[in-house]
């Protein structure tokens, strides 16, 4: 069921949603939000696109197989715990940059970890949605 309205609305909505997801992701450390919510929003954007344009098309836009996202996300989450080990501190100790980045606040490994969460959530929702839609 391809509808022109939906498809053009999606084209408008999708970038907005993706932006919003980034916003939710970055603000998570200080306000309600975070990688999980951000990931869900991003995933909904792609799901919406899949509904509007078909799964084939959505996969093409995503460029990367959602299951690969799962792997990358897990690796990112894992890697974020490692820098501290090289500083001979315990695994998963937060390592922070000295300066603050304007508009975002401090950057450090916990944010990287949250990015891993973000990626896995996107990968999860899209794997489920795409494979359900295809079956």
């Amino acid at each position, binding site marked *: 069921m391809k509808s022109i309205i939906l498809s053009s609305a999606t084209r408008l909505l999708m970038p907005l949603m993706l932006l919003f997801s980034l916003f939710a992701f970055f603000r998570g450390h200080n306000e*309600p939000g975070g990688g*999980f919510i951000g990931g869900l929003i991003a995933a909904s954007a792609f799901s919406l696109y899949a509904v509007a344009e078909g799964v084939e098309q959505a996969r093409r836009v995503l460029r990367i197989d959602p299951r690969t996202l799962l792997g990358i996300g897990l690796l990112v989450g894992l890697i974020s715990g490692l820098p501290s080990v090289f500083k001979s501190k315990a695994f998963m100790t937060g390592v922070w940059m000295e300066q603050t980045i304007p508009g975002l606040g401090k950057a450090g490994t916990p944010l990287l970890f949250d990015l891993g969460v973000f990626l896995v959530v996107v990968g999860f929702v899209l794997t489920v949605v795409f494979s*359900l839609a295809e079956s």
Partner: protein
Amino acid sequence: MQVVFAAIIGMLYAGAVYMMLRRSIVKLIIGLALFGHATNLLIFAVARLVRYNPAIVQKGDSAPIEPFADPVPQALILTAIVIGFGVQAFSIVLIKRVYQTVGTDDLDQIRGTDS
């Protein structure tokens, strides 16, 4: 308030158990979903319900302003919700496949591997 919430949690548990004891495979999954809600609320309630602020540090402060809600159970529930959701998604698809392969949604007829 405690008493009312305890009662609600009890009711959710009762509903969950009742649903799981039905023969329909769909009700089983619904029962498990209810079970999840009940458990989340239990964690929330048992760590004391307070009509306080969220545990967010305001600009300029170094700690949330008292009184604020205990953030620990919230973090636990968040984890539990997400895990529960992942498991639930899998279970839902599983019962779909079970129905497709076995050809029934009546659990009483799914007994092939026990005896």
